[in-house]
């Protein structure tokens, strides 16, 4: 049956969920556990995954770490990378993408190099997170170097509104900070050093007082 989806009104919005409208390609072979003999895996990727496997009584437990290694290497969990990881883990690639797609930090589609997670949960929203997110979208939304995602509570409501920039927590942020921050990333510099959570003292006055 051939329907041109664009001509059908109810499909016009497209799928809000990537994948829902995907059909299997009947030309492809079934995706079974990759054969080590025919699946080349880069040595460092293999070493990284095997080191993780060694931590657990059951090697499959390294699946998430393996996907992260793939993402670090290829920028996202690309099919090629997933097959390589599956080969090391001796699992089906389907197993890996099923796991990977469950987690917000793993990109199952190509994504920008710089990961910017803007918290839009309650505490940050109370402090202006939506304006902040809008500012990020405005300044970096179309830039393929960046992936700007609205994220759930990142566990840093004390610096609301905040964002995680390539893993570095920064806040409180003002929409006006955004162009500076992006420029710093483009220049390969640390984002807003003075606003990094890593450098912040505790709010509890007792904690400060009783040091000794």
């Amino acid at each position: 049956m051939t329907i041109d989806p664009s001509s059908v009104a109810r499909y016009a919005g497209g799928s809000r969920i990537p994948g829902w409208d995907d059909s299997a390609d009947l030309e492809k072979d079934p995706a079974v556990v990759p054969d080590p003999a025919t699946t080349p895996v880069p040595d460092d990727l293999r070493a990284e995954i095997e080191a993780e496997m060694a931590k657990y009584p059951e090697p499959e437990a390294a699946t998430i770490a393996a996907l992260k290694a793939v993402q670090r290497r290829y920028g996202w969990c690309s099919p090629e990378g997933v097959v390589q990881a599956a080969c090391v883990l001796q699992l089906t690639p389907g197993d890996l993408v099923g796991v990977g797609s469950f987690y917000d930090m793993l990109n199952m589609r190509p994504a920008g190099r710089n990961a910017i997670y803007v918290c839009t949960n309650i505490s940050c929203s109370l402090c202006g997170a939506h304006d902040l997110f809008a500012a990020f979208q405005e300044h970096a939304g179309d830039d393929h170097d960046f992936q700007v995602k609205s994220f759930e509570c990142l566990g840093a409501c004390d610096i609301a509104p905040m964002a995680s920039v390539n893993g570095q927590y920064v806040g409180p942020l003002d929409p006006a900070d955004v162009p500076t921050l992006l420029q710093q990333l483009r220049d390969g510099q640390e984002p807003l050093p003075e606003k990094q959570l890593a450098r912040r003292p505790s709010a509890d006055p007792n904690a400060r007082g009783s040091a000794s």
Partner: protein
Amino acid sequence: MPRPVVDLVTFTVDGREVTAPQNSMLVDAALQYGDIEIPVFCYERKIGPPVGACRMCLVEVEGVPKLQAGCATAVKDGMVVHTNTPRVKEAQEAVLEFLLINHPLDCPVCDKGGECPLQDKSFGWGGGISRFVEPKRHFEKPLALSPLIAIDRERCILCYRCVRFSQEVSEDYQLVLHDRGAHTFVGTFDGHPYVAPFSGNIIELCPVGALTSQAYRFRARPWDVEGGGSICTHCPTQCNVTFTVRDERVLRVMGRDNEAVDDGWLCDRGRFAYQAIHVDDRITQPLLRDGGALVPVTWERALEAAAAGLKRAGSDVGAVVGGATTNEEGHLLARLLREGLGSENIDSRPAGGPSTGVRTALAAPALQATIPDLEFAHAVLVLDTEPVDDAPVIDLRIRKGVRRGAVKLAVATSRPSSLDPNAEAVARFAPGAGEAFVAALDAALGGTGDLAELADRAGADADAVQAVADVLTGRDDARTHDDAPATRDVVILWGERLTAGERADHAGRNLLNVARHLDLGASRDGAGLLEIPAGGNNRGLREVGVLPAEGALDTAGIAAAAAEGRLPALYLLHTDPLLDLPDRSTWLRALDKASTVIAHAAFLTEGISEHATVVFPAESHAEKEGTMVNLDGRAQRLRRAIGRQGESRAEWQVLTDLAGRIGLARGPGQALRRAAGLPRGAWGM
């Protein structure tokens, strides 16, 4: 491991006292022993442990504050359960309302309509109204999941049955869930099709119309069809099936769960091969070779020609019988040959086998294991067979036993097996060296002979042989030491090819030695030998005597003799030697030389179209009446689901007719009764 002994408990459900096995799940116990249905979606006993996902089965258990999932609550003595209180009703209506929120309700155009659990549950337990006014999700549909299966993601209610089947039953792990929460969807890796030996089962498991058979889509409605219960004859497991029939056509094959046979599953061959029943190139009338070509003739002419040919050949006739033959047909042909023509040259084994003594010893009742034993044994040895090819559904049973952590598996084959990853020990031997391997295994178990030398002869690694032996004896199995049973239940699943060829007797004796060392014959249940015969009814055919008498020609002998021109007539009952049997060149010559080649066939395959002189149309398994014996000795009945095609006649009738024409006068009824008397009174099942 011996089957667990189950105690009975008594509990109350909706005021009714019910006695059921302890630890059975409430939904099963209530339905099976109390006739009270608690609705379920995600739960399906044959998939495995409950997951408690859909929440359709919530019930009230006295003394427990929250509603409990009946699918995941084991019954206990004195438990008091309510399934129809206002609280339970409200929860059931709520779950159905939730499930229908995003369900398209396109029942009028859905294949599942009329036999849909979601429809049934909505009707039986739903609130009848929906308060959901938001737009439903809509996506492109249907999409291909594989050449056999279409997926409609709008309809999916995320019960996870299909992915659990793929991951936890067939263990192919190709079908997975993607994404999370309400975005979750069923799919595969990067658009690869879901192609696996048992994929079709997910169609039956799906409680909605999300997974449909490409071949059955839009062919019929449940009220258009009739179901015909029979068995599948494509392998010696003989899974129990139902043919879905509309207007005398088989439109679908579904499982008819039998725990003792198929455990509720079918392989894709058994499920989809029905498509060959209704095709144009099937042979539906008698054919006779006339001036080089096969031409349609009347039954009278064909039967006459066949009878004449047989009479001409007299006792110089050989018959080869294929696995799709029923006990009755096999028996009739054997009588026709033996009593009518005085020939003992009849065989149902593709490559011979051990002599009568060894064969009888191997088939000794005390030594036989059953299919369910595979699930409960301490250890299973897969020997010279690839279950997924030779008896597919058996593969699932082995996986099940291993998955439950109860069975230790050893695999000894000449080629890599799909069960290798599940096995505790794997040994490889050279093709055809099964006999030598078993000798080595016997040595490793403490029998005679030098392990290193014998392993070498088998082309196997001595350490691997020893490892297999250790799995069987339980040397490294902590459980054996713990409860220290005097005996260990070991099942050896072996392929008929182990005892094929010239050294068949050696192989058989070696296997008997191994069995003796493992004490498999000690008249106990749960342990023993289990043979996978070469074809669908090959065990039954042997049991009704479709075998050459001592000194007569076996299959290979028939080929050789015919090739030398010593057998002018050949009878091929459901077999094309050029396709099904070894040694093609001999068979080519044999078929050339024989002046009369009578075949029962459904298709004009090479051997038939080029060489047969008389062809009788063969019935498909959906058209046949009769009995067969499956691999563990269960006599099962084939029932006709559809009428015969074209001018076809019942093949037992053809054989009886032919017998009459060569002067063997006895009524068919008598023959049938006699055949039927053989395996456990099969007739009338």
